[in-house]
């Protein structure tokens, strides 16, 4: 049955219609065009900026000249007026007299009139008693001469643009050519070859299971390993602060305009109505930041230690949880959670969806106090279910296992802290 075209929704996923070979050809052509443009621009910049400077420093011949006149050249554009020093010199080569306006080889304009004036003041114009200055002329074309030599560093910055074009489009072109007309399986097999030895030993042993090294590199005080927290509360706070400052900084500009209109007795109602939702989001961000600030600073660190790692289905191990701070806890809950995470493209957006597929309460304590210097401590047993799927990580899909500590503190916002664990597959044939 034919499906109606959806105007209101972006196309979901990495799907295409038509010939894949034609698509690859179009992709290769696209990159090839940009590669050619990059190479062309690079060649032009090289011959017009680098080569002349190099020739001035290595091939131009030293000579003497007299200064006849001097002035500041001006170039007017939308960005304002730019200047360059211009000095009229006279010199003789093999009996022939040359007169020209010059200074350096690039004769480029730049902002700032005063520094050009300072350059001109170094040269004296005296028709009766002319002073001699050093100059350098081009032996291939003696009509070309300069008063200064040297290199300008900024011209190398100009190369960033064409070099970026070449690197990105060159990489894309090579990728397109390597995958030209090849099946998805053959491309995947080519990727698997590990040309740069990036797949480490655990990855080869258990493909697509995350490495345990980050989890087992910190010893615990009570049990064998201290589990790392998924995302540090301080980093979350920093992220929220940055988002808050950026959003409210931009919105505040419009608020100033709107308030200014009211103060002058000329209110802009359209602007006022337009910015109201943005201001509300900004207030929400501030509230969220204050909440995070309270959770980060008021609630002390949560530590989780584990007796064994990595874990396997049917495994039983010990878990030790501590919670510091000065808190009146309504409850603390420790959970073992398995979460599926799927990332997909929708048009130009990339979205991630998560879904809990397993949730087991390991520990729950209610109504107790945590005193400063005397943290809450509890040890419990963690059991991995027999049919548990192992941890999994691919480009767009993941299965993550984690120990989650949820706290309900009287008079404070609730908090939740996650500690990833790795579950490897049980295997009858391979000894687990």
């Amino acid at each position, binding site marked *: 049955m034919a499906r109606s075209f959806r105007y209101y929704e972006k196309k979901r996923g990495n799907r295409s219609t038509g010939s894949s070979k034609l698509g690859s050809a179009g992709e290769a052509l696209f990159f090839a065009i940009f590669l050619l443009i990059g190479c062309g621009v690079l060649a032009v910049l090289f011959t017009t900026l680098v080569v002349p400077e190099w020739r001035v420093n290595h091939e131009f011949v030293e000579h003497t000249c007299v200064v006849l006149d001097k002035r500041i050249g001006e170039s007017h554009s939308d960005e304002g007026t730019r200047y360059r020093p211009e000095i009229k010199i006279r010199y003789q080569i093999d009996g022939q007299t040359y007169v020209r306006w010059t200074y350096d080889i690039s004769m480029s304009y730049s902002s700032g009139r005063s520094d050009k004036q300072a350059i001109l003041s170094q040269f004296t114009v005296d028709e009766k008693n002319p002073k001699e200055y050093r100059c350098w002329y081009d032996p291939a074309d003696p009509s070309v001469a300069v008063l200064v030599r040297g290199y300008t560093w900024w011209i190398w910055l100009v190369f960033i643009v064409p070099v970026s074009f070449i690197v990105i489009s060159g990489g894309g072109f090579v990728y397109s050519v390597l995958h030209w007309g090849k099946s998805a*399986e053959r491309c*995947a097999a080519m990727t698997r070859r590990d040309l740069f030895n990036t797949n480490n030993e655990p990855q080869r042993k258990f*493909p697509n299971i995350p490495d345990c090294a980050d989890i087992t590199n910190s010893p615990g005080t009570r049990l064998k390993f201290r589990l790392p927290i998924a995302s540090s509360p301080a980093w979350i706070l920093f992220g929220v602060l940055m988002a808050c400052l950026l959003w409210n900084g931009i919105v505040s500009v419009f608020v100033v305009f709107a308030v200014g209109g009211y103060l002058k007795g000329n209110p802009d109602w359209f602007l006022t109505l337009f910015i109201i939702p943005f201001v509300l989001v900004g207030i929400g961000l501030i509230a969220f930041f204050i909440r995070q600030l309270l959770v980060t600073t008021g609630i002390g660190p949560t530590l989780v230690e584990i007796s064994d790692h990595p874990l396997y289905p049917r495994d039983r191990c010990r878990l030790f949880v501590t919670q510091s701070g000065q808190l009146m806890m309504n409850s603390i809950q420790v959970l073992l959670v398995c979460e599926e995470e799927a*990332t997909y493209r929708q048009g130009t957006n990339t979205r991630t969806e998560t879904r809990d597929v397993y949730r087991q309460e390991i520990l729950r304590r209610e109504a107790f106090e945590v005193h400063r210097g005397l943290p809450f401590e509890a040890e419990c047993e963690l059991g991995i279910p027999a049919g548990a799927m192992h941890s999994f990580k691919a480009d*767009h*899909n993941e299965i993550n296992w984690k120990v989650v500590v949820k706290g309900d503190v009287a008079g404070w916002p609730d908090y939740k802290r996650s500690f990833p664990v790795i579950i490897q597959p049980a295997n009858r*044939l*391979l000894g687990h």
Partner: protein
Amino acid sequence: MTDPVVTIRFDGSGRVYQPGETLSGEYRLASVHIGAVKAVEVSVLWYTEGKGDEDLAVHEFWRLDTEQGDWIDPTRPGRFSTILPRSPLSYDGLIMRLRWCVRVRAFLDRGKEVVGQKVFQLSNVPAVKVSAP
């Protein structure tokens, strides 16, 4: 004339395999005359299905190519055999599924392709059940 078809058969009867076990079998190209097959690719691979974009990884890959001097006789079955890896295991979750399969892709003359695929299960992780909220 019937369209070309690829059929795949595993040795033994089961479709459930364990990590480290050998998966072997054969494939056949039907309704294809001799000389019409330019290349055949046999892959043992896993791929994901579900909410996320597809991930795909090849565990074992063989390619027979007449241009590389390989002899391809579509009247005779082709064999494959591989030791299965420790992970990832087949999985049937809520928003993602992970499937293992043997996929045979035959490249015929005039740019045609024919693909056959047979899914098998690596280990027996139970499917995730949707529990009531």
